[in-house]
């Protein structure tokens, strides 16, 4: 049933390509209907599944001579991320409602990207996962290169090449793992149980973690993210920062940590204070949190603030993963969901509501306009988004970040403090951006906005309400997602992970 999310999306692509050349309205409607249909399927699947155990969705042999199957399955983690994709997809299309230039192709690439992402989250055969993962790269390029803004061709190429480099690393480990496991199967369940030799895991784990980590914004391989997200059109930025970065984090969890858990064990010796890959990546995650926040603090371009904040928030995900505590991993998965929603919201406000109207993203320029009076809805939405983003209780970010910090305290107490510092800096840059952009200095040479700005349209309001509503819902009742995430992390697939850490 859940496999239909993939098929519906690609079917939508096909329909869009067959539409006549200049049909903008039809293109939008087709895209929206497709996204809603996909979301409906996921919601049905989510409600059906009481707990987070693994449920096979489709399983047919694909290349029998190599033991590769077309195996789709979902557990609690997949469901959470599928849900995220569905929600961001629908709101992304709503926020792209004003797309006129080559609209057909835009929505076609958009739906192709969504379909591939669904595929990654549902795949339980490693090659199939890789196929969908790579498939997602191409629509990204075109979405940015054709419809983007600041330095779009450079940004698109940089994003794609970084992603591809990351997936090249993954491919190396994929092929090696396939061969070492006997060239019989690439099924994730079986590979998770296969006892890979420890020295193999010791180099395979970091390679594949970095490979996926590049897409997740692991410092210092994150530089593609701010450039790419800023250059991308709004709907694409929402999807890129909201969902595609989670592909990387999902890969880190599902492939690197599930298949090669021994790679996280202690080396037995210490280099520069690090005793295991776990220490290294935890530190890199922490640096990402703090560095991303500090750089966001000094940005002049509004969208860059949001771009760097994405890097900072993804650092929480990676830190949570490295804690190897139940609560830390819960927090990491929940943060994947929460940040997906919130970054979508932030990019929507900055890109669609502000930039499309004020035609500038420079904070100094925006300070002179009275945006909070001209587009109060945008101001209000950004305030809510800002509150959620800094981790105010009542929104999804709070529960997630609290869990990550609690987990980090067990594992790396000093890093927990660092993460707290990151949150504080987060408050600072969010507040700064909000003040400057919407509530500029009163009087004294105000440059009133030249003409009244176009009002916030209905699709934008709908999109904003959806995203805010979801964040508040999960903030007040996170059990909705935790009830599937926690059992999924307890499943036998992750046994190797818990065994080593002793918790």
């Amino acid at each position, binding site marked *: 049933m859940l496999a239909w999310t993939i098929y519906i999306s690609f079917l939508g692509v096909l329909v869009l390509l067959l539409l006549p050349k200049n049909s903008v309205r039809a293109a939008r409607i087709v895209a929206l209907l497709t996204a809603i249909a996909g979301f409906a399927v996921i919601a049905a699947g989510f409600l059906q599944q009481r707990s987070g155990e693994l449920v096979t969705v489709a399983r047919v042999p694909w290349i029998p001579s190599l033991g590769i199957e077309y195996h789709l399955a979902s557990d609690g983690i997949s469901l959470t991320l599928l849900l995220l994709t569905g929600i961001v997809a629908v709101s992304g299309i709503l926020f792209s409602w004003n797309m006129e230039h080559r609209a057909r192709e835009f929505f076609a690439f958009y739906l192709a990207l969504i379909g591939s992402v669904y595929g990654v989250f549902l795949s339980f055969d490693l090659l199939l996962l890789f196929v969908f993962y790579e498939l997602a790269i191409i629509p990204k390029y075109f979405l940015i290169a054709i419809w983007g803004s600041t330095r779009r061709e450079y940004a698109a190429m940089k994003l794609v090449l970084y992603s591809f480099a990351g997936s090249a690393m993954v491919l190396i480990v994929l*092929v090696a793992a396939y061969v070492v496991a006997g060239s019989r199967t690439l099924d994730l369940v079986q590979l998770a149980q296969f006892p890979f030799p420890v020295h193999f895991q010791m180099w395979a784990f970091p390679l594949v973690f970095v490979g996926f980590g590049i897409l997740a914004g692991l410092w210092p391989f994150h530089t593609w993210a701010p450039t790419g997200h800023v250059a991308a059109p709004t709907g694409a930025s929402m999807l890129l920062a909201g969902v595609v970065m989670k592909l990387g984090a999902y890969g880190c969890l599902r492939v690197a940590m599930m298949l090669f858990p021994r790679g996280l064990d202690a080396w037995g010796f210490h280099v520069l204070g690090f005793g295991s890959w776990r220490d290294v990546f935890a530190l890199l995650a922490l640096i990402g949190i703090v560095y991303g926040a500090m750089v966001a603090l000094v940005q002049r371009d509004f969208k860059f603030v949001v771009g760097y904040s994405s890097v900072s928030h993804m650092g929480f995900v990676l830190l949570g993963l490295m804690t190897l505590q139940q609560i830390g991993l819960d927090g990491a998965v929940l943060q994947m969901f929460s940040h997906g929603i919130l970054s979508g919201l932030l990019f929507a406000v900055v890109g669609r509501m502000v930039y499309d109207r004020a035609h500038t993203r420079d904070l100094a320029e925006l300070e002179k306009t009275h945006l909070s009076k001209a587009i109060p809805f945008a101001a209000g939405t950004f305030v809510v988004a800002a509150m959620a983003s800094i981790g105010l209780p009542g929104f999804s970010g709070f529960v997630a970040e609290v869990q990550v910090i609690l987990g980090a305290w067990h594992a790396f107490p000093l890093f927990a403090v660092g993460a707290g510092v990151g949150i504080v800096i987060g408050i600072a840059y969010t507040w700064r951006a909000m003040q400057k952009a919407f509530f500029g200095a009163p009087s004294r040479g105000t440059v009133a906005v030249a003409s009244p700005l176009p009002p916030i349209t209905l699709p934008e309001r709908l999109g904003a309400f959806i995203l805010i509503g979801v964040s508040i819902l999960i903030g007040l009742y996170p059990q909705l997602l935790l009830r599937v995430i926690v059992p999924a992390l307890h499943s036998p697939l992750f046994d190797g992970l818990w065994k080593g850490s002793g918790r």
Partner: protein
Amino acid sequence: MTAFSYLSLLHLVLPEVIVVIAALCVLSVDLMFLRTAEARLRGSVGALLSVAGCAAAIGWILHTPQTANVLNGMLVLNPLAQRVQIALLILTMLTVLIFIGSTFTEHISEYLSLILLATVSMMFLVSTQNLLVIFLSLELLSLSLYILAAFNKRSTRSAEAALKYFIFGGISAAFLLFGFSLLYGLSNSINLTSIASTLHGPALDPLLLVAIVMVMVGLGFKVAAAPFHFWAPDVYQGAPTISAGFIASSSKVASFFLLYQVMVIGLAGAEGSSAWHGYASGWVPVVAIVAALSMVLGNLVAIMQTSVRRLLAYSAIAHGGYTLLGVLSHTDQSFSALLYYAITYALTVLGAFVVVALVEEETGGDTLSHFAGLSRRAPVAAFCMMIFMLSLAGIPPLAGFFGKFYLFSAALASTPGTIGLLWLVILAIAMSAVSLYYYLKVLKYIYVTDPPAGTAPIRISVLRQAVLCLIALSVVLLGCAPNLLLHWL
């Protein structure tokens, strides 16, 4: 000498005979009936006859598959070789179909018959294990290709390309022959299997190493592997597009098959190893070095190209490097991976050349800027080109990705117990990642850049569009369900 029935020999080589007859028919029909007809009609008739001939040959092969080993390895037919022949014939048919409507020459029937003769030579090339027959077929192939490259008499580039091709080809043929003669001297036989059994000894004769290197030079030239690749960019750029496509596709398949046969069967026992900590001298390290050089050089130089044809040439060098991985792994699995890769690559690059031909005929050039905005001027062709470029880059679920995956896993699995060839696989994957840049550059011009103002949509003949779509479809299909081809191989 046992008495041998020439009739039975003819029976065995009936497919080749059919193709030769087809070539002659094309020539004669054109000479006798179509002297005054217009080019398009002549082309269509000739192509039809060629296609008929090839189809008949395919039909015959499928109808009566043969297994034979005749005259001490001069003619070796087994199911695998015959399937490769079928693949070659299909590629020829596609080439011929695309040729209809080309305007670069009036000698249409000569062109078509040359293509068919080249096909015959390739069919012989894959069905022999005798050094002399190999050389003969190789020469027949080469000569046909030289002429095909020179066929555009109005272009100096074409002549220059053909001349370069000829000179390089001649030199490398000399190397090859020298190597073969050394092999003969060492083993007193010109049959690959006999050579192998004779050479199987504990130590490696230094002369044998010289022979290996010589043979590698000759064959390396054929597959355009660095550092024997210098002809490739100029030929790809100068030759008429159809010829370039033919050279890039079919001849590669046959040449790789040959390379595999010579190295793995002929020089069995002298492999050596290029595993990371297990170096042993033999032909495998030589091939490994050539492969590594090709991958690196091909990809890095391609980045800087502005002419799409030259870009395809350097990418061909790179892909040759990847394919050589299949050779140096020398297992059955790697052989089928090699063939899969070569065939799908041939299809893809042929399709790419068709699109290049279309753009050239319309805009007069093949640099990247000529491709600007193609997606709006010829959407179907642009979409097919996207499939080809992405397949070459190795993006799933296209055939190029699966070919690479299969090759790499076969390479790693070839050293049981260790993963000795990992270094080469890592290099291959890394270079493959680099290649995405220039393929994407082409796609950027096609999809992102706006077409120059006031350009009209390009009109493409239905036949060409059909062929393009067919090739694109097959690339996608073979990628999504590689079993279709693997099963067969």
